[in-house]
């Protein structure tokens, strides 16, 4: 049995974010999304709807894309969390980030980190080869600017290069 906690009292939470361990004292109600943004100042992960409907908060947990807004930080312990900040290296974008630039896959940019995190995870998922398959696999990421056509083009570009 793990640690029992008292109502509303801060509990010790250990998160592995982008390869680094972070130790925080958090109210158990804190979502992974709020832990990232408000406690770790990793504001690349965006808060859109905060109810699992828009995909802006998409991060990876043990390599799988999940929604940080519906994940409690205390429940994310023991998992390797990757955020948009952990995707590239200094001076070197992840190929998906570069493809979003090359294909103009965004307008305002608010949904973009979630789109890219979802797109990177998609590379390792069963998803058919066509644009329609990509649209289906990406349907959990909304873009109010409507950059969908270029987002699909960016993803397909990367898929063609890494999954010839």
């Amino acid at each position, binding site marked *: 049995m793990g640690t029992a906690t008292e109502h509303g009292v801060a509990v010790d939470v250990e998160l592995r974010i982008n390869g680094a361990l972070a130790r925080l004292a958090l109210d158990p109600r804190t979502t992974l999304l709020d832990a990232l943004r408000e406690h770790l100042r990793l504001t690349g992960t965006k808060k859109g709807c905060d109810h699992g409907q828009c995909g802006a908060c998409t991060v990876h947990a043990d390599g799988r894309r999940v929604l940080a807004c519906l994940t409690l930080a205390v*429940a994310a312990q023991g998992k390797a969390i990757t955020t948009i900040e952990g995707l590239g290296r200094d001076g070197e974008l992840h190929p998906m980030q570069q493809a979003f630039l090359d294909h103009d896959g965004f307008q305002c940019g608010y949904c973009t980190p979630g789109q890219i995190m979802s797109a990177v995870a998609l590379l390792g998922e069963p998803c058919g080869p066509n644009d329609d398959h990509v649209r289906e696999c990406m349907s*959990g990421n909304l873009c109010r600017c409507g950059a969908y056509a270029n987002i699909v083009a960016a993803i397909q570009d990367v898929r063609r290069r890494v999954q010839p």
Partner: protein
Amino acid sequence: MHPFSFTTAETAAVALRLAAEDPRARYLAGGTTLVDLMKLEVERPTQLIDITALPLTEVTTLPNGALRVGAMVRNSDLAHNEDVRRRYPMLSQALLAGASGQLRNMATTGGNLLQRTRCPYFRDTAMPCNKREPGTGCSALHGENRGHAVLGTSEACIATHPSDMAVALVALDAAVRTAGPQGERVIPIAELHRLPGGHPEIETTLAPGELITAVEIPALPFAARSLYVKVRDRASYAFALASAAVAVDLDKGVVRDARVALGGVGTVPWRSRAAEDALHGKPAGAATYRAAAEAALAGAVPREHNAFKIELARRTLVRALTRLEANPA
């Protein structure tokens, strides 16, 4: 969100004991329904018992040929499981028709069965709702009820059950394995979800603290020819207006056996034995399918904005049966 304490259970016995000690505790699995509803203050547990570490993540074939799915198997893993894809394609399709890639990576088999309705009045604490606050009345009866149920309703509640997966599982006669204060038991899935009647707040036949540990899907060779068709307001990532899970055993153009279940139109995942009876022994084809569809919706009760669902569900079922016939195995 109301305050709660958080505990991780590493064994089912610990989870059961914690739940027995605290009637206002809730099990936390994928969290895709529960955390959402806690933010809305529709759910106000005093304790969350994290059950995702329980060793319930296997999909195995039992000696009797049934497929046992651990309650913590994620929806995405189940959808892409080779046995599910080969033996029960409608289940794989139903899972993939539900939610989004991210949510399917989080949501579990047990949690999917217990997900709560998307009725907007249930989700809005400012509105009366018999399911959320018994006795306050049903706002949907004379409200915005376009998305609501036409089958299995009562004057107390017309909310739909939102699951796609459960629709395929009722068609497949799955059994739900549980552990509870009284020990382990097996519940036929048709007996898991309760019709709202006068008590829409009681949604399942699970006892307080009872934990779903697995779902078992019996061997059903003809389900290798099965299909899930879902109709919704947009092409993806939306709840069903109407859906149909169908499996048909055809012998020389005659229906020898069939399974039919509907989603999006019922207060529970809706097995239609009336439609199955209408198919048995009849020649495959449009007339038979239409008769089955009429039978399936015979008892439907429309409300002001959802009468369209009756014909939509009929046509969804006819389309599913027609497409299945055109694409054998």
